[in-house]
């Protein structure tokens, strides 16, 4: 195991530097392209504003008229049998499936975060800033999420419920 024949392998070292670098670059460039593609807006059908407060959400459907309502969590005493504790709200966000929906998310007071994990959505609600997320749901149903940025005493008690109807 003396090293008489295994030193100075310049050609092999050059190859095993350049070849993996080429492979990694050829993986990275299409991947970055996809990353920028996911950021593009695919012509949404309509726009809904979601405003976070301490400790509830306000939804504004202002494209075709002015529908504005608050969405508070249902206290446990008000739940019906079969409802989910700490997840149900009084007024759900009703949306159609198979239509690109643009959500403009902001906050009235402190940081919140509008999340629906099963739809792959999480966008921070920052006061003084308007964040945008676009999604297209494909299956009808009721989708739950919870506020995902610590916002005070009732941070765990301001859920988000999206009801997607065909």
């Amino acid at each position, binding site marked *: 195991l003396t090293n008489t024949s295994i030193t100075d392998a310049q*050609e092999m*070292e050059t190859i095993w530097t350049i070849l993996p*670098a080429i492979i990694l670059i050829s993986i990275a460039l299409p991947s970055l*392209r996809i990353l920028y*593609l996911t950021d*593009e807006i695919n012509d949404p059908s309509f726009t809904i504003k979601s405003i976070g407060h301490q400790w509830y959400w306000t939804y504004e459907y202002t494209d075709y008229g002015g529908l504005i309502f608050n969405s508070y969590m249902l206290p446990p005493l008000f739940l019906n049998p079969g409802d989910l504790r700490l997840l149900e709200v009084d007024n759900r966000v009703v949306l159609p499936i198979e239509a690109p929906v643009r959500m403009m998310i902001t906050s009235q007071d402190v940081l919140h975060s509008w999340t629906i994990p099963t739809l792959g959505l999480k966008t921070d609600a920052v006061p003084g800033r308007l964040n945008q997320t676009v999604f297209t749901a494909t299956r009808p149903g009721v989708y739950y999420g919870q506020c995902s940025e610590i916002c005070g005493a009732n941070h765990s008690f301001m859920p988000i419920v999206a009801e997607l109807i065909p």
Partner: protein
Amino acid sequence: SLRHVGGLCRKHPSLIPLFVFIGTGATGATLYLLRLALLNPDVCWDRNNPEPWNKLGPNDQYKFYSVNVDYSKLKKERPDF
């Protein structure tokens, strides 16, 4: 130390691609960071102008790379005020 690196490369030429790739990566990362610091509309350096985002043009592109959307050709859909 650059001379030292040159000496190393002469003795072991297989190190050259290593320095090239690492150097390109580090330079690229630094340049992108500088681009973000200077051109990102969320970053503000001027104390006397606290709201530079009000000056953004509707046809400017601020992304590094835009795949499908051509910002200079976007039509204006809303009225002036």
